[in-house]
């Protein structure tokens, strides 16, 4: 089992192969549909992003409310393909990692290869279990979006599988 940390370095990304099981520690940022739309608009309009995405990893996740006494509620991945249209521009802007579930478009796979990034799969439908790997959670942008706000999560040994590596190779069997 490989251990990796964020921000993701070129070297660390280069040694990951599709299918590898890895444990990720460090900061990751949640962002799903509406946050992706906004981030794209900000980039297109030349505005400053509410977070620095260079070298960072985005987690496609909208957690539940936080139960009393917990750090975070259930926080599993949502379907990645809904973010496909917004992803190449984020990669062009320096994003290096994405965490979600399911297949990505050909265009995203090409962009991952072009910008030497990586797409991870998280345990799908295991939001309660994954909450155990989160050490800190805080909304850092777009709080008005509720569960779709951008949360900064500090994770320790968050279990992932490499879905698409920096060479553009994918883990899913092709038809």
């Amino acid at each position: 089992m490989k251990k990796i940390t964020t921000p993701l370095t070129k070297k660390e990304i280069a040694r990951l192969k599709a299918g590898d099981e890895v444990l990720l520690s460090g900061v990751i940022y949640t962002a799903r549909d509406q946050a992706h739309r906004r981030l794209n608009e900000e980039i297109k309009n030349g505005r400053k992003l509410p977070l620095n995405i260079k070298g960072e990893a985005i987690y496609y996740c909208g957690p539940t409310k936080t139960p009393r006494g917990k750090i975070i509620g259930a926080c599993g991945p949502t379907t990645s393909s809904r973010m496909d249209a917004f992803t190449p521009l984020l990669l062009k802007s320096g994003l290096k990692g994405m965490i979600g579930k399911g297949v990505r478009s050909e265009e995203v796979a090409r962009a991952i290869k072009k910008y030497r990034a990586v797409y991870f799969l998280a345990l799908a439908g295991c939001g309660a279990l994954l909450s155990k790997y989160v050490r800190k959670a805080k909304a850092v942008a777009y709080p008005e979006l509720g569960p779709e706000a951008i949360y900064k999560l500090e994770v320790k040994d968050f279990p992932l599988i490499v879905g698409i590596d920096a060479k553009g190779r994918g883990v899913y069997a092709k038809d």
Partner: protein
Amino acid sequence: MKIISADKIKNAVSDLCVRANLVLRGDVLGALKSAYLSETNNRAKRILEAIIRNASIAQKEKIAICQDTGLPYVFAELGNGLHVRGDLIKAINAGVEAGYRKASLRNSVVRNPLQRARPVYTPAVIHIDAVKGDKLKLTVFPKGFGAENKSQIKMFNPTAAISEIRKFILEAVKAAGPDACPPYVVGVGIGGTADYAMYLAKKALLRRISKGASGMERALLKEINNLNIGPMGLGGKTTCLGVNVETYPTHIAGLPVAVNISCHALRSATAIL
């Protein structure tokens, strides 16, 4: 005539929302455990183990099984000998909101599907049936949208062969592929009208899985599990935990077939008042 207060209904719905989202259905957990035992692909087995562990953590620590606590779908069967004092629909929605707040579930509903402003808890999608008797049967079904997005409907010719229908269902599961949290439970509705077929498909998901499976259900289950999609779409023979088919009479000119897929976190809870 027996009387039931809106408040009692609200409290029951609230409890059902909490139970459905925190405690995985016994039949689903049972199916996951037997899949774990029979799965031969090592990675698939480890993922199934994590899914089972997730259910146990959710129940013990009162954390939602999945962060997508669904679009709350509520079925109510109201006996004709029972009078509701107050507004049944308001009571159901108030119960949903109370339960979702109490268990820190997710507010995943947008009031306007086009403007998509800040998410809230309600309204639920509510189906009310009139039945005999003096009871009210309530079922809360939080439907996750990753799987709901994979719904399909096809209006077949009345002369279509069963094999064509099976192929359509199989293709719907293939199209869902790794995206919607396999292993799936597949609900199929055959007959009625376009909308009613989809309603049947959804209702089919409420039936206990692996119980009294018909020949068609067993054959579909086998075919789907031969697709090698597997848990998280990473291969294995556990692609589907169960197939439930519901049918209804239809028109001489048509044969509607609807597929409503559930992720492995198929959640529902029922109470009879």
